[in-house]
């Protein structure tokens, strides 16, 4: 009989002499020779051949896995490129056909088998990952959403994360910068910290909310995705490792939301966990996929500007109408730009915005090769991405090469290895990352000034154009995973990974752009992570229907980070740079030094127990302990427990008649994520050298932070109630979730009274509550055999937060324009309440004691008059001042977020549209404020913007929204257009069409004639339209604290022509 089998294999070998089959042959041979050959000879055999097709089409499905059912199951191979297969099996056996994306089918073996597979649309059969172990969704009590990599291919982007916008209920992504290679803000289920940092510039709009990014696990390895050195917006360091993954290489992304799902990731999973899996080879036929995109980025509509003579006339008109005698008589005469119209220096109409913003043409290329079978598969992906920013002197170029392979020499051993290398070079221009103050300032220059040239224009303008910035990030990621299955049900797996990220931020500023002093700055940082995880898992199914899975693992990290910085100013020339030039004066060099350093080790132990009875009743429990070298040695562990329950109702007998009910499941979970808030330095204090005293060295305790030995851990407790429903053969699928999260004992620095001698103490007394509901609905209303396929998905999330405690029991903390007030939404605006404009002088309140009208406080403050804004005088002292008269108003965080996606396909054409929305959010419209402020100084060198369409006061009796912008004399006296007033607080709700894609797939026959397997071309428009009542430029392009900083990098609108082909 053995002989017989070999003969047949030989025949097969002769019939199709191609390499793949050779490999299949050897693999199968090896497989057979090594293991499980029992009983084959005892029965008769059958040669089964046939074709596997996709339902509704006539297309053969390649790479479908064919398994012989038995105990255990045995892999037989997979289908060829045209979907055909031939296998030899024992008679009377049963075959299983499976491939990802289709429902698995089992049929009895017969000589000729034509199998049709239905596309799998049920989310119930998704494989989900919990604590590095895969299970099916119907046995998971936790909350997660899985997005296929196919849904992330529409728009070429430098960071695939932003494509998740609007796709996951509860994941609030705001693409708040258009700078290529930067990340927007990502919040999962609302705010989890209130770590607001006042800006160093003193500008409220530049204040900064420390990001609490979810934990990203890339191919099973937890990865830090934020730049290691961030100094508010001024981030040094390289691009996020997330943006180093080409979107074409992503197989799927899973977002874990509740504590049951995240607690196995411990303290780092406190803000949610996002799992990213890159593609693996799974096609028996080697496949080559090539994707290319050409895209045009266009700047959004820029603001209109009054140019040339019109600007001069307007400014002159302002001065003549409102100016004092001195302004008209003396100051005007010395302002040459206004009065010397014949001077060629001032006789221009320069379009400054045009100099800095423009349309760019870009392209991406990606080649992926994958192949292999059950015993060996591989993947190689090469990606190239180049995008020139719509703002001058910015852009990003990325090269990636990622490889992995999986080798299973036997059913007991599996080896997976991954090597990814990537380089991403950003150009940040003269900006500092998210803020581009230099460009914003220059782009707002008076049109009367001549355009940039080396002899005429300002430093700013020249710097924006001439600064040479290069910010390359280099990443090498390796990962090796070895799995051993000694007996059925038992898995032993060890994973090791080494990841090194190096980035350089190099900026050369030529002398002309820096007050005749050429300068160079060289920032260099390296982050190395060595990671090991050992996992043991055991699954046992009892005949009686009781299933158990128990697993445990431990993780070990070594993380080293070091950043060096070097800066020299006053190089001898623009041309002689290296090795960092010749510096004549010692005073002009800033020297070099260590900017940041850390050396961290971490150990974790985790265990999980899952039980289900007949897949109806599911119980999950997990426990995890984390310790790091920063947490001190006395009791370094934080402990995160979780419990979850799931009831799959449709499996109950009393529902068995309800054929229309595909599934119905109720889930309830509870879990905690405990995060250490301090480290040994905050607990025991930091001791630093402090110079010398009489030649003896001094060592001092750092008195910026008082040691706090009582510092505990932050505690996030989440309750999650979920309900999943599938109806009518999964034509309708619905998920509803409701959660409540309490974050207690969050750390916050508390300023101390000055009799304490230490400036601050890290206390953990901040408490926040979050609660919300999420809903996702997917509809596929058309019957499966319809020629038109249509799917529609919509999701929405409501999240509310409340601050319930602040350190020291205080009721509020003010940080710039933001206030933390106990008992209301965590981040409110702290601004003057504006109730209109004084129509007449008689409307201005008069202090009955002094007989004087309301006045502006502070030195130089003037009395209010008709045409000035009405600010609420909260303490009734007839003086408007900063300390007493600001109010707590608004909520900078959105309440509702969500999105929708729909795809319609007919024959070879497809159309897909997706969008996202954010509702109920207050934005400070700094942009319009600045627009109005620009008219406040006709003698300045700022541009003037047209104010048409604004309802402003011009003459007594006018009931207007805005004060009189042309009366520039009021600017100094009462600052009518101060940005921190409710006049500029607007509703930032918006609805955005993210992308519209039209695709055409070449008919199979035509493609085959071209010797292609598949060819698809598509057109995509990205960021096409934003619908909003907001009067500023873009309600999304605002800071995390809701300030529309007009200096931000605008979001481009993009049009893409793409091509997908597969050999």
């Amino acid at each position, binding site marked *: 009989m053995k002989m017989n089998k070999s003969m047949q294999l030989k025949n097969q070998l002769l019939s199709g002499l191609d390499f793949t089959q050779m490999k299949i042959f050897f693999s199968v041979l090896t497989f057979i020779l090594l293991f499980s050959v029992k009983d084959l000879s005892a029965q008769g055999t059958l040669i089964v051949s046939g074709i596997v097709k996709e339902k509704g089409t006539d297309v053969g499905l390649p790479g479908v896995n064919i398994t012989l059912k038995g105990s255990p199951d045995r892999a037989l191979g997979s289908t060829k490129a045209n979907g055909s297969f031939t296998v030899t099996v024992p008679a009377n056996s049963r075959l299983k056909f499976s491939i990802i994306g289709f429902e698995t089918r089992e049929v009895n073996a017969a000589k000729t088998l034509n199998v049709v597979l239905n596309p799998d649309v049920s989310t119930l059969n998704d494989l989900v990952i919990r604590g590095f172990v895969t299970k099916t969704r119907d046995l998971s009590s936790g909350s997660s959403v899985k997005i296929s990599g196919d849904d992330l291919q529409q728009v070429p982007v430098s960071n695939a994360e932003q494509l998740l916008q609007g796709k996951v209920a509860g994941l609030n992504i705001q693409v708040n910068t258009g700078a290529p290679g930067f990340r927007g803000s990502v919040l999962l289920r609302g705010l989890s910290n209130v770590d607001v940092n006042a800006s160093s510039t003193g500008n409220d709009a530049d204040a900064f909310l420390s990001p609490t990014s979810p934990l990203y696990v890339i191919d099973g390895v937890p990865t830090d995705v934020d730049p290691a050195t961030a100094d508010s917006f001024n981030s040094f360091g390289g691009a996020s490792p997330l943006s180093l993954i080409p979107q074409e290489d992503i197989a799927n992304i899973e977002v874990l939301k509740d504590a049951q799902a995240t607690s196995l990731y411990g303290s780092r999973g406190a803000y949610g966990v996002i799992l990213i899996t890159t593609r693996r080879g799974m096609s028996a036929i080697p496949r080559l996929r090539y994707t290319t995109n050409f895209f045009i980025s266009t700047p959004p509509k820029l603001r209109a500007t009054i140019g040339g003579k019109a600007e001069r006339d307007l400014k002159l008109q302002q001065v003549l109408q409102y100016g004092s005698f001195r302004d008209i008589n003396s100051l005007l005469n010395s302002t040459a730009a206004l009065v010397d119209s014949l001077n060629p220096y001032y006789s221009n109409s320069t379009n400054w915005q045009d100099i800095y913003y423009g349309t760019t043409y870009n392209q991406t290329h990606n080649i992926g090769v994958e192949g292999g079978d059950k015993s060996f598969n591989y993947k190689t992906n090469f990606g190239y991405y180049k995008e020139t920013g719509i703002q001058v002197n910015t852009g990003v170029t990325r090269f990636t090469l990622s490889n992995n392979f999986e080798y299973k020499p036997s059913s007991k051993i599996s080896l997976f290895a991954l090597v990814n290398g990537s380089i991403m070079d950003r150009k940040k221009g003269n900006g500092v990352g998210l803020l581009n103050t230099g460009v914003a300032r220059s782009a707002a220059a008076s049109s009367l000034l001549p355009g940039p040239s080396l002899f005429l224009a300002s430093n700013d303008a020249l710097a924006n154009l001439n600064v040479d910035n290069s910010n390359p990030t280099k990443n090498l990621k390796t990962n090796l995973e070895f799995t051993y299955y000694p007996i059925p049900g038992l898995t032993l797996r060890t994973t090791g990974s080494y990841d090194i990220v190096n980035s350089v931020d190099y900026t050369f500023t030529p002398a002309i752009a820096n007050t005749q002093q050429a300068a160079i700055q060289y920032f260099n940082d390296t982050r190395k992570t060595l990671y090991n995880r050992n996992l043991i898992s055991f699954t046992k199914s009892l005949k009686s229907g009781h299933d158990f899975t128990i697993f445990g693992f431990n993780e070990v990290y070594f993380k080293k980070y070091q950043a060096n910085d070097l800066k020299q100013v006053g190089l001898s020339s623009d041309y002689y740079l290296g090795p960092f030039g010749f510096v004549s004066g010692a005073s002009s060099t800033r020297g070099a030094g260590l900017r940041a350093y850390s050396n961290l080790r971490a150990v974790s132990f985790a265990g999980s127990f899952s039980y289900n009875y007949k897949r109806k009743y599911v119980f999950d429990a997990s426990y995890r302990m984390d310790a790091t070298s920063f947490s001190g040695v006395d009791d370094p562990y934080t402990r995160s427990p979780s419990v979850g329950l799931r009831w799959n109702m449709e499996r109950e007998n009393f529902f068995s008649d309800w054929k229309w009910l595909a599934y119905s499941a109720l889930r309830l979970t509870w879990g905690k994520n405990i995060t250490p808030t301090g480290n040994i330095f905050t607990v025991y204090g930091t001791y*630093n050298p402090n110079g010398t005293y009489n030649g003896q060295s001094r060592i001092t*305790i750092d008195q910026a932070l008082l040691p706090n030995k009582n510092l505990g851990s932050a505690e996030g407790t989440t309750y999650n109630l979920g309900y999943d429903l599938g109806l009518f053969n999964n034509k309708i699928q619905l998920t509803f979730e409701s959660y409540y999260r309490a974050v207690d004992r969050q750390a916050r620095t508390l300023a101390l009274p000055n009799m304490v001698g230490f400036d601050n103490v890290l206390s953990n007394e901040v408490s926040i509550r979050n609660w919300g509901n999420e809903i996702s609905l997917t509809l596929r209303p058309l019957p499966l055999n319809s020629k038109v396929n249509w799917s529609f998905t919509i999701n929405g999330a409501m999240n509310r937060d409340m601050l319930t405690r602040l350190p020291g029991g205080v009721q509020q903390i003010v940080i710039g324009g933001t206030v933390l007030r106990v008992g209301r939404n965590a981040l409110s605006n702290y601004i003057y309440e504006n109730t209109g404009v004084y129509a007449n002088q008689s409307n201005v309140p008069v202090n009955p004691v002094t007989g004087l009208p309301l006045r502006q406080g502070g030195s130089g403050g003037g009395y209010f008059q008709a045409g000035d804004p009405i600010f609420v005088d909260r303490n009734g002292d007839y003086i408007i001042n900063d300390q007493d008269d600001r109010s707590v108003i608004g909520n900078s965080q959105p309440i509702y977020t969500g999105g929708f996606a729909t795809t319609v396909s007919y024959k070879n054409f497809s159309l897909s549209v997706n969008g996202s929305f954010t509702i109920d959010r207050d934005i400070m419209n700094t942009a319009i404020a600045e627009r109005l402020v620009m008219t406040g100084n006709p003698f300045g060198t700022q541009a003037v913007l047209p104010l048409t369409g604004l309802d402003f006061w011009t003459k007594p009796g006018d009931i207007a929204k805005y004060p009189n912008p042309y009366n520039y004399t009021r600017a100094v006296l009462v600052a009518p257009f101060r940005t921190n007033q409710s006049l500029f607080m607007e509703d930032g709700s918006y609805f955005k069409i993210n992308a519209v894609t039209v695709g055409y797939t070449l008919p199979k026959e035509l493609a085959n004639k071209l010797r292609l397997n598949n060819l698809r071309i598509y057109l995509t428009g990205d960021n096409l339209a934003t619908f909003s009542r907001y009067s500023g430029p873009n309600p999304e392009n605002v800071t995390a604290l809701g300030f529309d900083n007009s200096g931000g990098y605008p979001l481009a609108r993009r049009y893409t022509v793409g091509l997908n082909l597969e050999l």
Partner: protein
Amino acid sequence: MNIKNIRFYLILVLVLTGTGCKKFLEVESIERFSGNRYWKTGADVEAFTIDIYARLWDKLSNSCFWPAAGEFRLGEIRSNTAVAGVTSFQSNDQNRRVVYDYLAKNDMKAVVYGIAANSPWLTNGSSPRTFNTILAFNFVANTNWTDFYRVIQEVNIMYDEVNKGIPGLSDSDKQRYLAEAVFIRCLTYFIMVRIYGDVAYYTDANHSTPLGREKFVSVLNKCIAELEPVKNNLPWKYEDPALNGVRANRGGAISLLMNMYMWNAGFDEANKSGYYEKTAALGNELIQSNQHTLIPIEETSRIFLGGTSESLIELKESSAFASGSNLFYKSAFPGEPVVLTKHEENGTTTHLHYKKAYIDFLFGSVSDYRADMIQNRDQENGRFALSKFEGPVSVLGFPDWGLILFRYADAVLLQAEALANLGRDGEATAMVNMVRMRANATALSGLVGQDLKDEIFKERGRELLGEGYRFFDLVRTRRILDPKWSSNPLSIDQFNRGAWTWPIDPAARDRNPFMTLNDYWF
């Protein structure tokens, strides 16, 4: 694969991962020390102690602290108005020297916050000015006590850690460090009490809660109760002579205790005889020890260089070690404004002079070497100088002074004062005569009662002229109320409302509901 094998793998996994965890988590940082890794050797304690002294020194030398607190408010000084030829130092700015006149008038608001345009003090079209922009006149810094509390926190932490035990530190060293910590804490509170009055008092390590101000008599009594039992753990002298005077020693501790007793004697009427008794006993102990001497009068200027046997406790950063701008802070020394030094040829002049009437009141016309050390006592043109402060000049032209907080002559005169108050006039006279004889002045005899007390008080004026004692002496003896002793006397009401204190920076009330400021200065 059988069960045995599974067990083997399980054990292997556990062995590979579970052991040595604590060790694994101990990582030494190369850039900074955490508190749990510090305090391992005696050298750690020493380096931290050095920092405590240095912080106190930094606070007292970063602004015009010592002379502004103890000398300028006397009422007997006036600024020099003469125009100097060359003004190469900030403090020679003639416009700013008027601040001494405001100090003399006890107009602390003007001193601290500057003079507004509508100030009645401004005459003859003078423009408004502030004094706090220049290091040498940075009086506003004196209203902020944070730096003192930084010293106190460090002391408390050091006391706590040393008390817990430091490996390798001998018991005698441990006791000495503990006593040293207590000494510096008491010294700091004493300095604060004299300028702020009531202060927040705490001795616990890592104190974090807000406290209100405690009555200063109580603060000093707590300090005394703490220092008295441990003072004998301090050595009279160190093996390394360089440490004498600059590190806590028994003489310094005794002198600090005497000063604290005498201060409280002035404010705690009911218990004052007890304070005098204690002072007398301590003075006796100090004198009997023979560890300190009055050095010859001709060498007086050597006292201010530091390290003499007359020095009880001092702070000094030698110009040999100091660098950069530290050298400019010499205005912190009481003598600086009144010593012409040897750079007269540069054209610089002294900032201020004592009124001739005051000098005459102190010395009269009798022979006294100390009177001879006053140059041009009747000139107001910048040539008035106290030659006792003359010394070797550092590279920047300043004498290489130490800040002598307490010296032996002060202790001897305090002893005399206490004895006189106890009616032991004979002993008191003997003490005063010790000082007088050193100055080649005629010995006192036959004075009793109030006359003797007044003469002792005058003697303190003569001996300690310009050194930062006089204003405090006037306050604690309440002679500041008497026009005989001060040409700018306070009324009893002013005195009771705290006119002798400094204003306190209003920032003290931030985040501290219990805090109050000195009402007089509102």
